[in-house]
């Protein structure tokens, strides 16, 4: 979201406070969300893909709803109306290609209406085939999960992105030699993927409640949260939609304050710190060891202000529109161990991975035939979960190493806690709770996290490794 996006969203939802009844509020949030998927998507070099990526986001979400819906409830009038709107929106947008340049909602001129109709018809036929095969909806949910993960992998592995872009350039009639991974900049897909996987998984385990089409689409594509979260849970979001009432004056003010605070953090503090934050250029120009530490600390703060500021804006816009989004940060750099750090940094992402990776894996290992000791189970659980969290940010060795860094940190902290606990008779409890001990723990935790960002911020393993060596006085 740019400042313009934030301003217009704020004005739009502020207008809702004055006009909309609860019913219209839901409809408005749904319509704004769908339209925003197109509006927020930046321009990409692949011709007309600033139209096709948003259309695909919406298409995947519609398919996920059709597969996972509670069939015994049938289709309500509202479901049908919302479905019709969703189908007409791309057609309407494709007509905007006849408007003068710059009048389109999409970042570039949308494709011709004939093409949209052909693709739309294929989707509708697929939809009917899907309905006809309803008894295999469980299998379809698995296949859809595979598709979502497959697209995710293509977008995140550079070689695959370039290869796919080259293939698509063949279709659009553009030069294949210019294929680049940036061609596949699909707005919000990382977050859309996690929301869809959560829904599909809950459907497979029989936990997914009945959710209306309108609430489902708004959950996956909710405009403040589509770019960078937070990641809510569908049952919570849909109940908030059902009870969405206009905020009171004080709630509105709290939300508005939150937006201003977020904008300040993101566009003033984070963007200001970016000048001296760790990156490949800054690290190559820095000779002195203390300055390297300054770069790393500046990066740590920049990342926090950027992301937490963004979350403030998203939660703030949610608040003034009557939807309370979950929190993502809780003073993460003031925690006294790495475990509580991960309870307070990108919380909705960590909770997602706990629910769908760490907990099921630990449960399976705990109940499995192979009797493993608990330390080994903890180690396996942390390694798998944190590596996947790393890979979610990008499929590179740097993100894997960043994940492993935290997995090892979490494991060491766990063993240390067990070690101290076994000796609690010999060490007075006042020792742990003393201010000095807390201060030492806080500094250690922050520095551990900050050093971890060296893997996260730089583009190659060699560069990160050399930077870490140099930070501790080693010679390059």
């Amino acid at each position, binding site marked *: 979201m740019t400042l313009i996006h934030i301003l217009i969203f704020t004005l739009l939802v502020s207008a809702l406070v004055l006009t909309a009844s609860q019913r219209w509020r839901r409809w408005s949030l749904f319509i704004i969300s769908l339209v925003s998927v197109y509006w927020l998507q930046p321009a990409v070099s692949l011709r007309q893909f600033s139209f096709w990526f948003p259309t695909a986001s919406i298409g995947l979400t519609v398919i996920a709803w059709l597969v996972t819906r509670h069939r015994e409830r049938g289709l309500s009038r509202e479901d049908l109306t919302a479905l019709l709107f969703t189908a007409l929106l791309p057609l309407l947008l494709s007509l905007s290609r006849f408007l003068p340049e710059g009048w389109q909602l999409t970042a570039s001129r949308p494709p011709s209406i004939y093409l949209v109709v052909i693709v739309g018809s294929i989707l509708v036929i697929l939809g009917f085939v899907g309905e006809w095969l309803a008894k295999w909806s469980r299998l379809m949910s698995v296949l859809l999960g595979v598709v979502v993960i497959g697209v995710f992998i293509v977008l995140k592995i550079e070689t695959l992105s370039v290869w796919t872009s080259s293939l698509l350039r063949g279709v659009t009639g553009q030069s294949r030699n210019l294929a680049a991974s940036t061609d596949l900049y699909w707005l919000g897909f990382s977050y859309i993927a996690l929301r869809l996987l959560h829904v599909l998984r809950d459907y497979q*385990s029989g*936990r997914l409640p009945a959710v209306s089409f309108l609430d489902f689409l708004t959950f996956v594509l909710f405009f403040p949260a589509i770019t960078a979260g937070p990641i809510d849970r569908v049952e919570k979001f849909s109940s908030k939609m059902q009870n969405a009432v206009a905020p009171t004056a004080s709630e509105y003010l709290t939300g508005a304050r939150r937006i201003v605070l977020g904008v300040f953090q993101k566009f003033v503090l984070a963007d200001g710190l970016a000048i001296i934050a760790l990156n490949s250029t800054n690290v190559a120009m820095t000779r002195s060891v203390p300055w390297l530490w300054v770069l790393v600390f500046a990066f740590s703060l920049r990342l926090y202000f950027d992301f937490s500021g963004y979350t403030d804006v998203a939660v703030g816009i949610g608040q003034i529109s009557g939807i309370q989004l979950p929190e993502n940060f809780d003073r993460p750099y003031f925690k006294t161990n790495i*475990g509580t750090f991960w309870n307070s940094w990108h919380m909705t992402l960590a909770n997602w991975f*706990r*629910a*769908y990776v760490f*907990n*099921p894996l630990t449960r399976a290992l*705990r109940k499995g035939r192979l009797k493993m000791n608990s330390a080994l189970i903890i180690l396996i659980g942390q390694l798998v979960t944190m590596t996947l969290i790393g890979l979610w940010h990008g499929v590179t060795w740097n993100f894997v190493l960043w994940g492993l860094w935290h997995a090892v940190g979490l494991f060491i902290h766990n063993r240390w806690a067990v070690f101290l606990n076994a000796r*609690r008779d010999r060490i007075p409890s006042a020792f742990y709770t003393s201010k000095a001990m807390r201060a030492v723990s806080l500094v250690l935790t922050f520095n551990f996290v900050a050093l971890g960002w060296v893997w996260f911020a730089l583009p190659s393993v060699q560069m990160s490794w050399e930077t870490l060596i140099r930070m501790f006085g080693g010679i390059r």
Partner: protein
Amino acid sequence: MQDQIAVFISTELLKDPTRKIAFDEPLISSGLVDSFSLVDLALFIEETFDVRIDDTELTAEVFDTIEELAALISARSTS
């Protein structure tokens, strides 16, 4: 029920039988019970009270204290 859970947490999870846990003391948000021990707690609840706590429910939002956990178990075992 609350006593049973408190004893399990102090003896099995914290390995400190002398540790008294108040029924309204935050378990998850405070970091007292880590994510690994939470899975053990869920398995214990399952075996002892025959109530399933799902992997997606092991968060401070669903229950953070022994009181809240006991309420969840009661609600599930009557339904």
